[in-house]
């Protein structure tokens, strides 16, 4: 395989597609599939056949606005239909070449206009199970360019130049990490892709793995070339069976096209990828626990240093990056580091995919340039809070993040800005809450999550989260005193500062941030025994008559 052969494949796919007058792209991601997208696709195929028009029906990955699903996009007109049911298939096929079906058309121009699609550039345009579809959209060009025209250190330099930072949440500079692993000694090194997405309300990585699996594989192979590793592992949670199936197909197809395996493209570089399944432990998203899990051990974290870059999988230098980080690699190699660095804010470059959920009109997947104001994400892209309710807070970063109140909506989204206000970028979950959400109850929900997901290795996290959960429950039930609040704050400090891994260190964040911005709600619960949002069921104290 070389660049010319790749171009040949791309050309033949384009020619094949050109034989059709219309392309009907049906979103088959989980949200759409659960509303009958499969039946819709079959109905579109038979309606297309019956009409005699040259129609290509393609299943694609997530298109973004999940709340409008099932979605169908008609190309080349670029018309998006939402809430389409199988019995409306004939209507859509009949409209091809005529007037569009007005009642099904989605008015989401504003939603898409503010977005910049880098990671999701192929989502909704390719069939995730067809490698040639990916190749037709410049897939694997970056890998071949790197192998044929660049030195490994040149690749690392390009990533460094791009300013890409880890998309798993921590925001560690990716180029620096790659450079460290590249410099580490030893002839056996590993690449690990962290697909153990576990934050409540987050589904970015799942959508990328399901909608564009080759992009992740290509990113890993480039990383392997850059740091000198010949083996990669994708660690996916077993709760994502579709992602596993798509990745398995993708790996098989990539091997068949000789884009994985020995002597890639006639060079001395060998690279292959294996899939490893997680068994449903949130803590296995922590890199040292993930490594233990791949090794077949109990998934518990280890103290760092030594960092995985020096001593990781089986004691070898290991590069661990998140799915979204790897998904950014191919476009950076293709378009150059400067192109990427031109997007975003000063210290957070590029784009970020967010899973927008909660009390918001357009729930789904969005990709925005770093530095965009939260207000734009929520009011313009998200379409604001529905049902006449008012916006109260947005929670970012899952159980490790915090709640950002309405008065901070003009904050530009970046790693540093979010950290400054007591939250984190996290992997990209964004849960919107309105005036019907009780912030104490929200904090309790996340604490319960951390408590049940704590591995139990270190005491502050194992016992501390449980004690904090108990105090939060007492507050929610109106049985707490102000002393409890003081104790809660003290426990937050100890758990944050003394826990072994990131899970424990960040577990108090939802409590700390709600205490910072919504302290009055805690006081209302404790002193006045009432829940301002009307969520918590507080029993009025029984008055004892003397």
């Amino acid at each position, binding site marked *: 395989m070389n660049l010319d052969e790749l171009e040949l494949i791309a050309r033949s796919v384009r020619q094949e597609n050109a034989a059709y007058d219309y392309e009907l792209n049906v979103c088959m991601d989980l949200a759409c599939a659960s509303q009958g997208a499969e039946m819709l696709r079959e109905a579109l195929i038979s309606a297309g056949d019956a009409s005699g028009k040259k129609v290509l029906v393609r299943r694609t990955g997530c298109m973004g606005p999940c709340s409008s699903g099932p979605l169908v996009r008609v190309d080349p007109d670029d018309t998006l239909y939402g809430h389409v049911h199988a019995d409306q298939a004939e209507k859509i096929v009949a409209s091809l070449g005529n007037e569009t079906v007005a009642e099904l058309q989605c008015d989401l121009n504003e939603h898409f206009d503010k977005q910049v699609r880098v990671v999701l550039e192929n989502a909704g345009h390719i069939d995730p199970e067809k490698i040639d579809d990916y190749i037709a959209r410049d897939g694997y060009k970056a890998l071949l360019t790197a192998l044929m025209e660049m030195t490994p250190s040149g690749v690392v330099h390009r990533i460094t130049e791009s300013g890409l930072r880890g998309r798993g949440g921590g925001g560690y500079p990716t180029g620096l990490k790659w450079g460290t692993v590249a410099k580490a000694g030893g002839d056996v090194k590993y690449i690990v892709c962290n697909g153990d997405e576990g934050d409540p309300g987050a589904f970015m990585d799942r959508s990328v793995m399901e909608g564009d699996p080759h992009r992740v594989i290509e990113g890993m192979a480039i990383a392997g070339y850059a740091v000198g590793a010949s083996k990669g592992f994708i660690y996916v949670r077993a709760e994502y069976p579709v992602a596993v199936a798509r990745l398995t197909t993708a790996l098989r197809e990539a091997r068949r096209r000789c884009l994985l395996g020995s002597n890639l493209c006639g060079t001395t570089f060998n690279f292959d990828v294996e899939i490893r399944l997680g068994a449903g*432990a949130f*803590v296995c998203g922590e890199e040292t626990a993930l490594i233990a899990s791949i090794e077949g051990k*109990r998934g518990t974290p*280890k*103290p760092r*240093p030594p960092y995985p870059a020096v001593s990781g999988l089986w004691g070898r230098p290991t590069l661990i990056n998140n799915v979204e980080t790897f998904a950014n690699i191919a476009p950076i190699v293709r378009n150059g580091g400067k192109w990427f660095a031109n997007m975003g804010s000063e210290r957070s470059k590029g784009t970020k995919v967010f899973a927008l959920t909660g009390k918001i009109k357009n729930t789904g997947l969005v990709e925005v340039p770093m530095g965009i104001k939260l207000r734009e994400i929520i009011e313009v892209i998200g379409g604001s809070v529905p049902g006449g309710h008012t916006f109260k807070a947005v929670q970012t970063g899952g159980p490790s993040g915090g709640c950002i109140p309405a008065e901070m909506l003009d904050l530009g989204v970046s790693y540093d800005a979010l950290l400054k206000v007591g939250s984190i970028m996290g992997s990209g979950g964004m849960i919107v809450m309105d005036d019907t959400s009780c912030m104490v109850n929200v904090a309790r929900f996340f604490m319960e999550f951390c*408590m*049940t*997901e*704590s*591995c*139990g*290795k*270190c*005491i*502050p996290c*194992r*016992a*501390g*989260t*449980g*004690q904090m959960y*108990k105090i939060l429950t007492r507050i929610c039930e109106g049985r707490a005193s102000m002393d409890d609040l003081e*104790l809660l704050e*003290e*426990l937050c400090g*100890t758990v944050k*500062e*003394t*826990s*072994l891994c990131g899970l424990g260190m960040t577990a108090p964040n939802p409590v700390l941030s709600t205490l910072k911005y919504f302290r009055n709600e805690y006081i209302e619960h404790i002193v006045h025994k009432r829940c301002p949002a009307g969520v918590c069921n507080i029993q009025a104290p029984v008055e004892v008559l003397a």
Partner: protein
Amino acid sequence: MSDNVEVKTLVIDGHEVSARRGQTILEVARENNIDIPTLCHLDGLSDVGACRMCLVEIAGSNKLLPSCVATVSEGMQVSTSSERLQKHRRTILELLFAERNHVCSVCVANGHCELQSLGQSQGLTHVRLPYCNPELTVDASHERFTLDHNRCILCTRCVRVCAEVEGAHVWDVMGRGIKSMIISDLHEDWGSSSCTRCGKCVQVCPTGALFDKSKVGAEHPKYPDFLPYLNLMREAR
């Protein structure tokens, strides 16, 4: 030991001390009679950094490091007993006492318990947290020893001594979070497990979770100090 030993100098609690490259802060501190409290660490076993009692402050970093695994570096300024550390240690001890059923007065290890003596040395006068009072079992199926989950602090010393020194790996941890439990083999009764009856786990257990059936109270001191000696003798052979 290789010929070119690299020596580092550092400051621990104001004392200038020297150390070999690769030594842990805890090792160097104890060599110099500076006491850092520990629970899961034991000389002769690998370190897991789990109990968080041995956390120390390093000047110039806000992060607290477990001294049992953190290695020394040149010019490091270590503080082992600041106000902040003491407060955290007391809170961690409180969390431990409240987690399971630690009732010293009726415990076989009363007077010989590392948790109890740490509580005393760290000035823990009372526990502010509500006791969890979990319902836990006692495994007395072994002919010589008993495992009382009520007193277990999950330090995993027994797991490590059995796997690393005895080589039997009878013990391991099951479940997660607050529901974590020490189990023998694949969660079988200790008595019918593959236990070699060497008793090392009983000697290294810091509390009354593992004890000898034939002894109680004052008669039950434990002798974990045999480990470094045993390792040394094995190395020599």
